[in-house]
């Protein structure tokens, strides 16, 4: 996927206002087969797949190391009692396969990497309707009935109502041989081709973390804005990283991930220093120009007691930034005050 097919900002607006398509085939699709899949994943993932009872339901979760650091963030789909599918980041795919594979054999779970599948994300207020128009009437009905965070198999396609933009839409996993023609038909249906650049500005406006930027194996979910994805209940579910996270929770995390808005004419970028009066320093983990808000936004890891205002070192200047609750934008609307 290129950074942009044309103007990155136009691609961004297409997704907020109508529909755009991203080629996310670089992501890893891995199927897990075996009677003890659920048991394996309940021990490996910080969120609890025990919560999944309806076929097709998706769950966002972190996979942790013993120290509570984030090895990856991923989506797991419950398809049947002996069949789960996970979608992992491209950069961590091999490590994830080794990590899961080392624990899968003991419970007779077989991993199948789906290199035969491409993945297209169609996102935006008109994404579902325009995607469904490519399908037969019966299949269109089935995908339009999908509830958020559910997926379903339609012939050779797996269609899920998920995404990474803060807009409604689908992620479609389909045979690689079909991907180009589907892309062209989507374009013909008015769905704009979008690249990695727009994907980043959209996910950041939506307040979604990027693995490697906003969290990694050195940081835990509680200091990464991801406490909501950790299922401490039921208390007797043991998962990798649980003990370390419980210790962090008991003493209280020292840092937190917050949203920043810069009202000055400059752009937040990852690794810029954040100065918090009286409390020390933090760091911008992701930053960009928000096309929707027409100013810069970012995520930063800062001391836990950080309040409403910080300074960010941008090139030779220290500029004031506001600390805000994320998301910044949801379903095309600004959720922060614009001064």
């Amino acid at each position, binding site marked *: 996927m290129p950074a942009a097919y044309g103007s990155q900002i136009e691609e961004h607006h297409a997704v907020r206002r109508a529909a755009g398509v991203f080629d996310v085939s670089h992501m890893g699709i891995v199927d897990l087969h075996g009677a003890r899949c659920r048991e394996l994943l309940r021990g490996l993932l910080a969120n609890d797949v025990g919560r999944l009872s309806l076929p097709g339901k998706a769950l966002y979760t972190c996979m942790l190391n013993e120290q509570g650091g984030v090895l990856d963030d991923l989506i797991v789909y419950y398809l049947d009692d002996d069949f789960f599918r996970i979608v992992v980041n491209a950069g961590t795919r091999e490590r994830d396969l080794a990590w899961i594979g080392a624990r899968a054999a003991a419970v007779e779970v077989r991993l199948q990497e789906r290199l035969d599948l491409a993945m297209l994300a169609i996102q935006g207020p008109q994404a579902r309707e325009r995607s469904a128009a490519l399908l037969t009437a019966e299949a269109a009905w089935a995908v339009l009935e999908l509830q958020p965070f559910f997926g379903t198999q339609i012939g050779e396609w797996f269609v899920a109502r998920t995404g990474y933009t803060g807009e409604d839409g689908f992620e479609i996993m389909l045979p690689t041989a079909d991907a180009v023609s589907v892309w062209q038909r989507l374009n013909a249906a008015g769905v704009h081709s979008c690249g990695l650049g727009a994907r980043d500005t959209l996910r950041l406006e939506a307040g979604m973390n990027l693995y490697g930027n906003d969290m990694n194996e050195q940081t835990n979910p509680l200091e990464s804005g991801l406490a909501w994805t950790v299922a401490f209940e039921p208390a007797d579910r043991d998962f990798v990283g649980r003990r370390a996270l419980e210790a962090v929770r008991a003493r209280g995390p020292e840092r937190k991930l917050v949203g920043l808005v810069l009202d000055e*004419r400059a*752009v937040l970028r990852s690794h810029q220093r954040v100065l918090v009066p009286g409390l020390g320093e933090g760091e911008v983990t992701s930053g960009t*120009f928000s096309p929707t808000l027409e100013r810069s936004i970012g995520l930063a890891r800062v001391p836990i007691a950080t309040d409403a205002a910080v300074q960010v070192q941008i090139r030779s200047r220290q500029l004031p930034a506001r600390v805000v609750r994320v998301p910044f934008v949801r379903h095309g609307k600004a959720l922060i005050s614009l001064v």
Partner: protein
Amino acid sequence: MSNIPADLTFARSHEWVRRLSDGTMEIGISDHAQHALGDLVFVELPDIGRRLNAGEACAVVESVKAASDVYAPVAGTVMAVNDQLRHTPELINRDPYGGGWLLRLRAESPATDVGLLSAADYGALITEG
């Protein structure tokens, strides 16, 4: 393929220079540079009257991707800046050699642009990558 007007000269750092009839030099960034930067979102321009050495950082163009310094291709004094860019930086993307100009300098001496590249040489430079 980048647009490289034959009547301009270019710096290796991707600024272009146009000699105007009043003797000043208009400066901007090349089509190749705006394309590499992507959508521009902010532009910082120098104060009028500021004296610049050749090669001195005199403006900042910031895109969705990155912030980049613009260097004075010749020594001189800033006579004018393109204030429209403060609100419509995308003019640089749309029209890098026209509406997207950055500043005008009065050069210290008429021959100060020696060392700049012709359009053909600049074309060869960016083709080499």
